[in-house]
């Protein structure tokens, strides 16, 4: 599903150049659950942004679903993104001015799906996340765990093939965190590919495979089965 070749991302601030990714080569198959780990500033988030088509690599190639997308325009990337990728963030990133229902509905709105269809799908997703009773509330009225469930509902509403999660449990207590991880695992078992950035090896254990980043390089790739057998 995903393949990168010599992926490089350099930020320039004034006269200072910071290399966030230096020649990253990874491959992710359909249906995999991959965790990305590494210390602060190692380039985890940058990698996720590039994989999620939010950011463009400075150099290198990026194949997404078989297409070379590293030179795509913003509009092309947006098209690809909204049909295929769902995001879950550490800080939830729900829109404060929209209700739970409207937040979850948003991707469908941008996909141009009819409102009756939207209503059906949002209801389903909210039921799946056990949050349907909060549909008319605003994000600030919810607990962190509830907000993250809403965010996951939003990420899956358009049935994406890939979910990118950036420390999805970072702002949650352990109980809520585990629940979110369970949700992700369920999604993965249902066939969705998941790439998750995390600090915690406990969370990483939910994944099939862990990619370790350090200073913009992939240092090790552990297949979990191998690690434990």
């Amino acid at each position: 599903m995903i393949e990168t070749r010599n992926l490089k991302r350099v930020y320039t601030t004034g006269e200072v150049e910071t290399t966030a990714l230096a020649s990253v080569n990874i491959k992710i198959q359909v249906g995999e659950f991959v965790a990305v780990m590494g210390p602060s500033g190692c380039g985890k988030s940058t990698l996720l942004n590039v994989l999620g088509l939010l950011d463009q690599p400075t150099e290198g190639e990026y194949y997404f679903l078989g297409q070379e997308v590293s030179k795509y325009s913003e509009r092309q990337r947006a098209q690809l993104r909204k049909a295929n990728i769902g995001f879950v963030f550490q800080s939830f990133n729900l829109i404060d001015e929209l209700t739970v229902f409207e937040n979850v509905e948003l991707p469908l709105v941008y996909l141009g799906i009819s409102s009756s269809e939207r209503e059906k799908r949002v209801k389903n997703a909210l039921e799946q996340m056990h949050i349907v009773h909060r549909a008319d509330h605003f994000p600030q009225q919810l607990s962190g765990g509830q907000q993250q469930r809403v965010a996951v509902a939003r990420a899956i509403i358009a049935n994406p093939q890939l979910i990118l999660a950036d420390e999805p449990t970072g702002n949650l207590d352990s109980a809520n965190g585990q629940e979110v991880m369970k949700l992700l695992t369920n999604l993965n078992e249902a066939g969705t590919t998941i790439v998750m950035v995390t600090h915690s090896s406990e969370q990483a254990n939910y994944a099939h495979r862990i990619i370790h980043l350090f200073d913009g390089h992939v240092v090790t790739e552990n297949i979990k089965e191998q690690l434990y057998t």
Partner: protein
Amino acid sequence: MLITYLKVAFRTLIRKKGYSLLTIAGLAVGSAVFLLIALWISDEISYDRFHDKGDRIYRAVWEGKVGDNEWKIPLGPVPLGEALREGFPEVEEVVRIRPWSRLVRHQGSLIREEGFVYAEPSFFRVFTVEFLSGDAATALNAPDNVVLTTTTALKYFGTQHAVGRSIQLSDGTTLRVAAIVKPFPPQSHFRFDFLAPLETLPLVRDRRAQWGSATVYTYVLMKRGTSITALEEKFHKHFQGIQRQGIGGGSTDYFRFRFDPLYDIYLRSNYAYEIGQTGSIDTVYLMSAVAVFILLLACINFMNLTTARANERAREVGVRKVVGADRTQLLTQFFLESVVYVCCAMVFAMALTEITLPNLNAFTAKQLSLEYSNPFVLVLLCGFVLITAFVAGLYPALVISSFSPVSVLKGRLTSNSSRLAGLSIRSVLRSTLVVFQFCVCIALMTGTIVLQHQMQYVMEKNLGFDRSSVLVVRGAGALGEKRRVFVREAEMNPGVGAVSMVQTLPGYDFDSMGFEPEQPANYRITSLTYAMVDEKFVDVLGLKIVEGRNFSTDHPTDSSAFLINRSAAHALGWKHPLGKRLRYGGNVEGRVIGVVDDFHFQSLHSEIKPIVFPFIRWVPQYFAIRLKPGDKTETIKQVKAVWEKLAPERPFEYSFLDQDYERLYQSERRLTQLFGLFAGLALFIACLGLFGLATYSIQQRTKEIGIRKVLGASVINIMGLLSKEFARLVVVALIVATPLAYYGLNRLLQNFAYRVDIGWWVFLVAGGAALLVALATVSFQAIKAALANPVEALRYE
């Protein structure tokens, strides 16, 4: 999708109350000013548009020069009408009219009717008049016919069915009401309450063949497809033929008739002897500019406040992009949000407009209103909302929708290079816009100061005569021979100084006529301004005689003598004017017995002209009464009693010379007041914006302020730091505004022959005031920031 956009817009509007209030208040005030001015302008430019054949109607203007005297007036000689009617096939119709105020008997007393207009029967074929009863073809055909407007009919008869009834004039004439018509709408360059046949006016009968006297207003209706310039040329050739028969003697003298389009009369002609109040196209332009500028200020506020707080929306933009929104969708969303704000502002603006309209109407003597039932007005309002939203909302929408979604993943705005560059471009633009706002404020303020200064100068300048405490009584001629009794009895009153009988007075219209002065002019006809006065005139006005003496009853030959002013002596080439001979009116000849010092008998718009004061031989128009200090109301009451004894039926009509004279500056005075008002409003709007900007700028610098305070900065240091950036903008605005305002104001002052200098202090005062107000606005936020606990600011790091 639209519904979601609107929902978010309304929720944002309600959630950010302070911000919404600032943007909407500024926009509402700006729009209200714009709407009010637009209403006024649309009224000003709609004059005389109600005539069906208006595009083919022209008014004759008489241009001429005899000697040193030049004129360009809309009044023309009586025979002009016949000449146009007879010799020129392209002329479809001609109508001559002359307003002549009459005293009309009503319930036992006499009422002065200023709207009494004498006109030819063709009036109804040229102008569009709606008849309620009577026949347009015959209404003005009989000499004792009169046509009334509905208002007049109601006033005199209590009913509009007044055809066949009669009215009586003060001289005993009885007129029969032949028709009732609707009055002209207020947007007409002249109005009438009564129409009577032109040939019954003695003045017109007497001058039937006189090409030399300005008597009637002549309007021509051209045939379709004909050219007015061709007629002008043709008529000029024809007229030169007439001229050879004996009018205008000198080689440099000339006469010419021009024809002004009806639609141009109100705004574009500003002659002496206008038939009614005229407007000014310059004022229309000036006000348009003010309206646009004030609206721009409000739009700029909107732009600045919206982009300044754009960062708050960054997260939302990021999220929307992440879940699939493209740029166009976001642009639409934020543009729609602007539309929502503008619509809210419009609701307030219309309320403000409705509230202030009565004041504007009182101030401009108009009847303006927002007519919502008029589809044109509705379309205009919608257009206005869209254009304002477009101007104010497009740029913020562009900025906000450009945020990169990556920022959102980091939880705060990243500081990569492109973002920094974007921020600085935006803040430079923001600063530029603030500078522009303050430029407008400073320009309007200097305008106010300079105009005020000019007005003060005009009011306080020594005019060469004393205009205070002079009572002017109208209708001196109506007393007939009893006028001398009036003078004698009025002068016996201890509160009265001297009483003079005059033809005209400073602040009123001055006529000119042909005089034949002796050497060096060799009795060639020279047109000179004149006013016939008696021996008390010099005393009443407090004039200074610089040579010779005043008229005196002791010298019988003074009845044909002259006083002249210094400029006249100079213009006529007389080094020793005393004893020089002058002739006028064909048979009156006399000598100059005195020279008065120049005084401003006309407004300070023009330079002092040569003027001749012949001893009064014709019927006087006014009594000018010098009042002594004391109880003036009582004195006026006693003078009125004298009048009522001599002319019990005639109303006692009086005014004060100083007030009449100051009316010459009415339009400038209004302009000054308007400038002041708009300068205030502009400053208010700009400060609303500045307040908002300061709030956001200080919010962004909370951390910096915290660090500075930890390192030992005092409250004063911090305030200085924060105020400095805004003070700099005002100073830049002053530098930019100064030359522009100086140029513009100089042009405005060109209207005055006598004017003040625009001193550098004007700009200093205006700039200082703007700076002070701006700092006061910013300091509120600055003090709050400076006093805040630095620990709060740094805690999140």
